């Protein structure tokens, strides 16, 4: 198994926004590589590949530039450990950030990976859940969406009675809107390219659905704008923002590529925060989470060890299976030679089966233990040789 990716640790937003894929395109890319999963969020684009496909080439095509020195490449256990840390939110700028777990699940479920990737992703999802339930890492409000709401409160104080415009139906945007609403703000308008999605979200928040061509009208009547579309170009320019206002306007641009013209920040009483700004603010407030992150790292390390043992056991599993098949073959052959009643046969079947299981239990356990160390292959060879499992029958 191989992992190749870029993340907020090594790549600026300008590069990441070129490499970000929606779920459908990410799954398409993964399928084009054979047995692979593509995890693409605003913070990272990572390819987990079980085969020999050239994942670096695929990433460089997305980036439009060579990624030497930017992309990281990890193999086998290191790749699994990385994925576990990602799913647990430990690789996020906000330790314990919860949105990534859903994104990992979506990426995994969008494709049908082979047994190795299936196992590692299922375990990653379990790790993410375990970390959240066994540590307090996810308890303080330190996600990008809650930071967006906290920043809006920094401008307006109490958000009761403040009106917000939600542009796009992105998940983080929706979460940010929910955070604003939980602080008393009113999601007055929901704009989206798809009228149906706008109607559905507007219904959920009790707002009015509007088209993207009606943003100007909505802007005149709101205090906060949250934008999280997947549009490839800017949807709002500084010139579109009403110049004469008595109230500040707070813009939250969670989209990658960015939806809002950065020049909006230069307008009087306008404040614009993009995804990088939000993450920088969140990083500032995370001392408490970091203490919990140390405990979470221990859990992740335990799970990584379990994965390593499982993967090592793959060396001895064929030998164990052959040994059991050989023993079963002997048992069945000897039973066939006995001429007894049907009732007596059933008794003999049960007794011999139990004998076989008891006899093979300890060798099976010992082989798996050896596999967890470095001796798995040696033991497997020894069993094959001692029982003549590779001999022509």
């Amino acid at each position, binding site marked *: 198994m191989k992992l190749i990716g870029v993340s907020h640790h090594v790549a600026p937003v300008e590069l990441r926004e070129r490499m970000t894929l929606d779920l459908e395109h990410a799954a398409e890319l993964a399928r084009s590589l054979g047995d692979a999963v593509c995890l693409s969020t605003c913070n990272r684009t990572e390819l987990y590949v079980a085969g020999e496909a050239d994942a670096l080439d695929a990433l460089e095509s997305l980036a439009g530039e060579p990624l030497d020195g930017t992309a990281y490449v990890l193999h086998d256990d290191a790749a699994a450990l990385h994925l576990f840390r990602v799913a647990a939110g430990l690789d996020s700028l906000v330790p314990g950030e919860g949105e990534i777990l859903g994104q990992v699940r979506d990426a995994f479920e969008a494709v049908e990976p082979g047994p190795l990737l299936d196992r590692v992703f299922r375990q990653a999802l379990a790790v993410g859940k375990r970390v959240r339930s066994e540590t307090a890492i996810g308890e303080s409000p330190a996600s990008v969406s809650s930071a967006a709401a906290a*920043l809006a409160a*920094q401008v*307006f*104080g109490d958000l009761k009675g403040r009106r917000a415009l939600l542009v796009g139906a992105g998940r983080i945007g929706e979460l940010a809107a929910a955070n604003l609403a939980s602080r008393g703000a009113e999601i007055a308008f929901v704009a989206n390219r798809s009228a149906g999605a706008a109607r559905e979200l507007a219904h959920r928040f009790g707002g009015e659905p509007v088209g993207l061509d009606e943003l100007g009208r909505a802007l005149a009547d709101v205090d906060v704008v949250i934008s999280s579309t997947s549009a490839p170009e800017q949807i709002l320019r500084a010139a579109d923002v009403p110049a004469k206002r008595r109230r500040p306007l707070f813009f939250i641009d969670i989209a990658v590529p960015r939806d809002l013209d950065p020049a909006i920040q230069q307008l009087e*009483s306008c*404040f614009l925060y993009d995804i990088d700004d939000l993450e*920088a*603010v969140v990083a500032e407030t995370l001392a408490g989470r970091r203490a919990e992150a140390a405990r979470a790292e221990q859990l992740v390390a335990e799970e990584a060890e379990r994965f390593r043992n499982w993967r090592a056991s793959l060396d001895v599993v064929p030998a164990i299976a052959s040994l059991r098949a050989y023993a079963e073959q002997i048992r069945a052959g000897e039973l066939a030679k006995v001429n007894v009643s049907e009732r007596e046969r059933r008794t003999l079947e049960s007794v011999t089966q139990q004998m076989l299981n008891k006899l093979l239990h300890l060798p099976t356990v010992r082989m798996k233990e050896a596999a967890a160390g470095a001796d798995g292959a040696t033991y497997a060879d020894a069993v094959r040789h001692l029982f003549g499992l590779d001999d022509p029958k």
Partner: protein
Amino acid sequence: MVELLFWPALLGYGEAAFAYASSRTSNAATWGVRIGWLAQTALLAVQAANADAFPWGSWSGSLNLFVWLVVGAYLIWGCRPRFRLLGLAVMPLAAALFAVARLGGGTRAGGHAHYSSLFLVVHVGLVLAAFAGFTLAAALAGLYLWEESRLKRRATNILRLPPLASLERLTWRTIAFSLPLLTLGLIAGIVRLREDGGSLDALEALTVGTWLLYGAFVVRRPTGRRAAYLALGGFALVIVARLALSAGHFA
């Protein structure tokens, strides 16, 4: 006795002026404000006990009282952790003005006033209380501008500061609370002036101008940077009134 009280007060204010610069020493700064203010309160009490009339009728004496009012107003709510930076604006000014008051003899005991105590309490007391409010409002406006620029620059530690809207609202409320005090103080002064048959001097004219500016502020209730600049502009008039013109007025 007043010497024994002046220095602890100045030391407390001076310590606070520096200690507010760091979040680690802001608790010590708050204690400096409290101890300094208590010492100054005792100083004023000693001055009042030793005086045969209103003891702060001179420009330096009124400056002493002004500092006490400013720090007292700040103590009401300004010591909260989120308003630490307000202390950084208020306390150096308070310490400096307190030192100026001493240089002018305003912290000595046994002062003598030309006017009746009742008139001076009403006129000087109310005008100074209003000026103290305007000083706090200016500090809030300064904090607003500073925080707004931090938001514009997307500073990462912004969530430790008071909300921008709170600063704007507090600035307006402080001015709205202080303006009636100035109005009453001015009326008392003008009534006295008419009785004496005098005309407006430069300080009085400037104070009327200050009243007009703050009156417009309260009525029109500007927002954002405009409000902050207006509050600071009014404070500039207060400073000129307190430092440049008050000596002639009290002569």
